């Protein structure tokens, strides 16, 4: 069963993402900000990480940069959740090593479809 780390400071978003992905059979672990996510990631591996960009303590782009520095996350798909007006964020994300992005707002089906394409 593939595992996903979902990072977002909004509880309602986290719940929705977790619910959607769990329902599709993925194992989902949640984190409320980049620092928490990094701690969790250092302890175990995931097949995919999906993270919001704007978060307290550590934002999504910094998280991606840090994750790429961890040996077992060098090739892990890392996806950002961004809003449509953040094209500079997308660039910054890519520079930090992000695999791609999902544009907010999205609906659960779109999320699932994208995740499936990436990790099956």
């Amino acid at each position: 069963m593939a595992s996903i780390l979902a990072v977002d400071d909004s509880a309602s978003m986290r719940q929705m993402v977790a619910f959607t992905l769990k329902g599709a059979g993925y194992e989902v672990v949640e984190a409320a900000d980049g620092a928490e996510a990094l701690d969790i990631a250092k302890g175990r591996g995931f097949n995919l990480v999906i993270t919001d960009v704007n978060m307290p303590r550590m934002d999504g782009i910094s998280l991606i940069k840090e994750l790429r520095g961890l040996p077992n996350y060098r090739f892990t798909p890392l996806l950002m959740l961004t809003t449509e007006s953040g094209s500079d964020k997308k660039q910054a994300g890519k520079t930090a090593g992000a695999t791609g992005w999902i544009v907010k707002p999205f609906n659960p089906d779109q999320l699932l479809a994208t995740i499936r394409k990436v990790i099956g």
Partner: protein
Amino acid sequence: MSIDMAQFHQVFFEESFEGLELMESGLLNMDPGSVDDDEINAIFRAAHSIKGGSGTFGFNEIAAFTHVMETLLDEMRDGRRPVTSEAVDLLLQSVDVLRDMLAAARDGEALDQERIEAAQGELERLLHAGAQASVPVDTASPEAAAEARCLGWHIVFRPLPQMFRTGNDPLRIIRELAELGELRVEADLSALPALAAYEPEDSYLSWDLRLLGETAREALDDIFAWVEDDCELLVMPLLEEAVSAPPVAAPVAPEPAVGAAAAPPLQAAPPVPERRSSGDRRKSERRKAAASGGGGSIRVDIGKIDNLINMVGELVITQSMLSLLGEDFSMDKLERLNAGLEQLDRHTRELQESIMQVRMLPISFSFSRFPRLVHDLSAKLGKQIELRMSGENTEVDKTVIEKIGDPLVHLVRNSLDHGIEMPAERRASGKPECGVISLSAEHKGGNIVIEIRDDGKGLDRDRIERKAIDKGLIEAQHNLSDKQIYELIFQPGFSTAEQVSDVSGRGVGMDVVRKNINDLGGNIEIESDPGQGSAIIIRLPLTLAILDGQTVRVGDETYIVPLVSIVESIQLKGRQVKRVAGRGETFKLREEYLPILRLHQLFGIEDARARELDEGLLVVVEGEGGHCGLFVDDLLGQQQVVIKSLEANYQKVPGISGATILGDGSVALILDVPDLMRLAGQLDAQQLRQSA
């Protein structure tokens, strides 16, 4: 949509209201001169979250409105836009509008379109007037070339060596392409180095792809969107003549050539997820009452719930131990029985305290509206006022929080309006131009004491006195202390303000404030220092459901007097008792003469033991701005009682605020001190008439 989003709505609303409060307090604290980076980022993030969530959950108008706010905030935090107090005020107003929009969405009510459009218009105007409007337009995919007839695409896909390090997989991309139509793939292995030089983490392969079928260019752009910087990409339309014999896949490639038949698409119908019950919803570890309108739900610290569960566990153990003892009881087990009962008593009391703790919330929930109130009103009045709050963490029962809000607002408005002077006036009297209102709460002696102090001009004693004389409330030759004069403002219809400004509310007078506080089982006092300021002191019981009471006996009847109202208990032997016209019997306590309330008379108790005043006891109580003495036979013990309402099955009885069940199962009535004082006044008038 196969998943019902509505189950996440409640959390979204709660979260969004919290976010709005964060925005509001952040905006209020912002000093346009020196903006704190962290602060403005926090405000931005709050707006961003609300926008994201509202869009995701389908509240599009909210998303659109918040988007404009977010854009403004984004520019401010980037430094592209100066933080002006005009902008801050506009954002504060927008927070109000947004709050109403969220409440309407949550309650299923219609949105106030006019107000929203007006507010949004203001925001947009500011947005475009100020710094460079930087609403970056997303790189829209180029228009698909209007081909005469596009039969497909020829794609040359050459990933750069670092492709894998972005977590992207060329194979996945090729599979996605295969879903769009008939795909012919030819791998190019020319870049593969010798094994010794081979870097396993680099990408060396390239592909020549032909995708047949009428696919829109956007679809291709979407597929390559993530990797466009990490590869060389050539996309050319296949026009009529270009569709020639497909190139033969080079067999040497270790990569399996994806042949003409597209691999089975990964698009199996997603299994319909089971509807999860709300048990999935995590209990929040933060504590908060239901947003805006109370009464609904409470968020409780998990620790408190765990505590309760432990206690109930202990209780069950004690109970089963006792029932075991009872099954086969003999007198030699008496000691164990007593020990068990003692334990039961202890556990029950602990459980009771813990449950009460659950309903306790910090009074900050009532105080939180004041920074904004003071900010707005002082601006409106042209005064400079600083609000200092302390003791916001003091905990009170949830019902007290709900009911104390309005009285507090009235009192603070009074200070703002009538207490603190205009800056010029303050300067003239040697005070700092900025007035201070301080709002504090603390636990003192089993009650919560709330104080509202201001350093304004204080109460005008003479004016109050004059008005009271005019209204016939006191005689011209009175010997009331200053404090007693000040207390007169709690009389109905008493307002010495030249005009009832709409700031202090229409006709809500101090008498209503006092009544509200009394209804909560508390009392209110006022102190004043002319020219220096005033203070309102409110004392409230910690909870409405339980009362600390003094049991008293009159004849065969037992009554409970709320401890919070009791000043002291005295014997009347040797004390001076005078009959005063219009006030009945009075006794002397220190420098004052206080009325005596004979409970046996008020309540028609015929078998009262004490008839002469020196045979019984006097319980000195305070209420309704005054003191009086309740004449009773005996004092019994003090105990905590659970308040039960008489109105539930009967109706309000004059002089009685409720009832309780004593340990022996009998009912004892709880006295309503302010009511009693009123009753005594009526009775006295009646007696005077009869004897006249």
